[in-house]
């Protein structure tokens, strides 16, 4: 069975198959073997990959995996295929301007029913005392403004959603 991880806005498909005492990694048309992770306690382990051994530090938070390898930190998300199907349904019918970071709404420039062109200013938001403009990702008619002035939101929240009517 194929599994999928998101890393730096890219999606990677891979799977493991059993080896002699360890696993083989199938990814991008290649097979990398053997792969094994040993002594992993307290978020610390040794990764064996092909003939190389690499020290790895890690922390797991639900579907999110934080890794420190070769002096660099990487954040991956395990993409649970069943759960993502539900989300994609909602996104396909609505499209939303999503919050790039957590913050507070400073001003709202559109209301329900407004027709907007791509790049139009929807909201001014503030995060860490800095002001940012939220722009329309596409043209369309505003279906809903999800936050009012003064309300705070988390990263990834839908701020403004659009209906499918386009002008």
């Amino acid at each position, binding site marked *: 069975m194929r599994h999928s991880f998101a890393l730096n806005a890219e999606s990677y498909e891979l799977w493991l198959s059993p080896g002699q005492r360890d696993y083989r990694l199938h990814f991008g048309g290649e097979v990398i073997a053997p792969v094994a*992770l040993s002594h992993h306690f307290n978020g610390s382990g040794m990764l064996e990959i092909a003939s190389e051994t690499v020290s790895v530090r890690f922390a797991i938070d639900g579907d999110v995996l934080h890794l420190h390898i070769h*002096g660099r*930190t990487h954040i991956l998300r395990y993409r649970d295929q069943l759960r993502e199907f539900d989300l994609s349904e909602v996104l396909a019918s609505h499209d939303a301007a999503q919050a790039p970071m957590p913050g507070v709404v400073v001003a709202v420039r559109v209301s329900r029913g407004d027709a907007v062109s791509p790049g139009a200013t929807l909201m001014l938001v503030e995060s860490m005392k800095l002001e940012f403009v939220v722009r329309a990702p596409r043209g369309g008619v505003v279906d809903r403004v999800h936050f009012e002035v003064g309300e705070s939101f988390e990263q990834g929240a839908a701020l403004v959603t659009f209906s499918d009517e386009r002008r």
Partner: protein
Amino acid sequence: MQKLPFDTVLIANRGEIAVRIIKTLRKLGLRSAIIYHEVDAATLAVSMADTAIALEGSSPIAAYLDAEQIIASARRANVGALHPGYGFLSESAEFARAVASAGITFVGPTPESIELMGDKIRARRFVQQAGFPVAPAAVEEDEPETFVSRARDLGLPLLVKPSAGGGGKGMQIVRDLGTLDDAIAQARREGLRYFGDGRLYVERCAEKPRHIEVQVLGDSFGNVVHLFERECSVQRRFQKIIEETPSPALSAELRKRVCEVAVGVARNANYRNAGTVEFIFDGHEFYFLEMNTRLQVEHPVTEMVTGIDLVAEQLHVAAGHELALSQSDIVSNGHAIEVRLYAEAPEREYAPTTGKILMLEYPECEGVRIDSGIVQGQKITTAFDPMLAKIVVHSATRREAALKAAHVMRQLVLLGCETNADFLARLLMDDTFLSGQIHTGYLDENPHLAIGQCGSDLPAILAAAALLTKPVRDSADAVPKLHAELGKWRN
């Protein structure tokens, strides 16, 4: 050092700077008290302080800005002095007055100095009248009806600035006169919102400007010394991310001149306390920018090269003692670089990030100082500034210091919240940075530096992720061994 007339000092601040101040208090045999909002209850500063007093507040920031409550807490803890740190109330003349009227020593300048330097328009005029260089500017209040046309006449690029405030907040750069009106409107809006003051001025911006500042120290007897310069030209959104001393841009002669001008400015202002006089340097001339009447975030680089504890000196002069240091006692050795570890994503226009610190390990190396207020398990929210820690490295040369700092940034493990650690390591090893040819537009001109690549690490990253994810292992384990062998055959 002479005995201080107080034995307990209240820190009206949080995070790394509170921890840093407590360390000096301990060294001097003084007791520490701290005020905190409940979101900070589990932080390092609160656990290190001898006494900790919780504040009520509608928001965490409101609590740290509540002068009345803080002074009441200081009274309750029976402290003799109050250190404001940086930010929050550190540059409020009203607060400094209220602390003094409560019979508590304010570890800072006189309220008059804060008032003079806190208003940038007034400070600029004061420095100009004292005969020191300032950048060409249009000040709105000089003649409001001609403000925009006077600003246009200065020539591009322009910088629109609110008179109040600091830290780059509200500043707008204008490279096209068509956007001047919008920039003025936004600067005014932000000035009003953050500082309750919409007064503006516009300065002509130098081409490839470098930010150079001088650390000064003054006492109540009119003595002022400098502790050399720091260069803070590597900035994003007008906020510093790498600071160093000495500046690679200055000749011995220019260094002497800029330090003397800074001492002159401070002396003219009868300045008492540690302070920083900031300048813009265009490669030939330098212009006064502003004076910060507090300890700066980047003060550790100065401490590393001079061996002087600036917080101890602040306490000494605040107590009314005469400076024990004379200019000839102050010598700079080697090179120091500080990098600011931020909870932010450089590749997404430095957007702030949030999370929970799941793992935190700082490397220990000689010549490395890490000022940090965070602990494992702590939540990183957007309630405060995104700075997590400062990594300060001291070496014989600039190149050595930069490479060592890059090494430390790679060794440091902080998991659970995206940070700029990898970006900082990349910057420290960038050829332009290493050559010293930096200026405040360096990051804007080199946007590729903000983007990290996994490169050859990708297979190792994916292998570790696969092996650590139970559903991935489970589906491999569900394949019977024999079938797996057959599978290999078929391929």
